[in-house]
């Protein structure tokens, strides 16, 4: 756990209660990190092809693997809604896709036991591809059909960035655990 489990509320002294309340911000860290990576996607890079990796979605997937309890589908929904608002897409597109991806990740988690980094990478690749393939129909549902081919540029870039994103999220998690242990 990245926080120590809360003691029974009625048994806490005021000092303990204050410290516990102040430590609850840790529950929001996965959401905040994912939202920050959505902001990073707005970097105005003069790329020759539209290949900005889907950092927000990858962060959501990584946290759904690392801390499934702290990245439920509804949190992913809000991160996706933020991505929709910042990226100028119809509201609900990324929200639906992120929530779907997190739900699917839960099912996969329940179905598989111990697994390695390579397996996670493959799962993330399949998820990213599925999200890209679903973007077209959902954009059409929102009344703005887009050509599919340029979307697929994002896939190789995202696959290459996956280890970095996972490493970053795991690093954040490690620091959180260390600070939680130091407090306890």
């Amino acid at each position, binding site marked *: 756990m990245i926080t120590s489990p809360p003691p029974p509320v009625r048994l806490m002294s005021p000092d303990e209660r204050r410290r516990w309340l102040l430590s609850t911000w840790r529950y929001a860290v996965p959401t905040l990190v994912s939202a920050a990576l959505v*902001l990073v*996607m*707005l*970097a*105005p*890079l*003069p*790329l*020759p*092809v*539209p*290949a*900005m*990796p*889907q950092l927000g979605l990858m962060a959501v997937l990584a946290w759904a693997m690392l801390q499934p309890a702290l990245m*439920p*589908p*509804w949190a992913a*929904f809000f991160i*996706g809604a*933020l991505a*929709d*608002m*910042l*990226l*100028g*897409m*119809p*509201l*609900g*597109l990324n*929200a*639906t*896709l992120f*929530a*779907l991806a*997190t*739900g699917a990740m*839960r099912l996969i988690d329940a179905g598989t036991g111990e697994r390695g980094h390579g397996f996670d990478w493959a799962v993330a690749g399949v998820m990213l591809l599925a999200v890209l393939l679903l*973007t*077209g129909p*959902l*954009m059409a*549902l*929102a*009344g*703005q059909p*887009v*050509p599919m*081919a*340029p*979307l697929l*540029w*994002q896939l190789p*870039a995202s696959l290459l960035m996956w280890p970095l994103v996972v490493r970053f999220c795991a690093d954040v998690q490690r620091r959180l655990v260390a600070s939680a242990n130091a407090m306890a």
Partner: protein
Amino acid sequence: MDWTPPPRRPSAMRREQNLSLVSAVVSGGVITAGLLLLLVARVNPQTASRLRMAAADVAAPLWSAVRAPVDGMSRLFEDVGGYFGAVSRAQALAEQLDLANARLRQSRLEARELAQLKKLLAVREPTRRVIAATRIAAAMSGGAVRSAMLAVGSSSGVARDMPVIGSDGLVGRTTETGRYSSRVLLITDSISRVPVIVERTGQAGLLAGRGEPTLLLVDRVGPDLPLRIGDRIVTSGDGGVFPPGLPVGRVIDAHAAAPVIRPAQPPLGAGFVTIEAAWLPSPTPEPTGPVFDAPVPTEARQRGAPRPRLRPSPRSADPAATVPS
């Protein structure tokens, strides 16, 4: 035949089952809500524009602040690089200047003739007016939408449907404005259409984005002369948003069914851009909603009721009485 009660499940197990059921229901509800939002966006695309611009009002100034040191560094490197090869560049520029001067002498003559002709015909032309000059603060360089954000908004006089122009050519037009930010639909987006003409042949057409770095020239009308590679494409001024004569791109593939155009100004490498007023003033829409002929009581007006909106009539010349919607 004695009846034994079934063994109670441990409460922790039951709680776990309840929790997983609740989370499954919440997940399903969230996904349904997302699909419903998409349907709402289909019916009314403007639904979330307030929310979008509130988010952009935060993000665009943030990115323009983050960019500042990087821009300073790159400008420093450009300055240093400018010293190398200065002599050969100066010679090349002098040659170009001679050529341009010759053309200029010719075009001065023609300009005077043109001015005389226009005076004879009493042609009135609107003028271009720069609203703001800024950098592209943030942009979307992947995914389904090609848009950029500028860190100027309605507080600087930017409104929607204004042309955004880079140093080498057209970049896009504004689609939504917040207080301190505006969103630009880049010409490479798949819903962007720019009315253009081919400079050499005078053929008119539409420049359609397709989500890729290159554009397509579609719906050509007019003299059907074959295009050549390198033909310049400029805006025609039709539609009233983009001023005429603005360079947009060059033909790089002339023989396809829809010729492929490379933008004169790659939208994401634009650096500084200017936002100009729309070329022709867009027709102000009639006030929508009910028109009140009855006077509004003073008490109601003191509490913030709008001024009476009078039906436009030739006699009511008081412009303050008509509140635009």
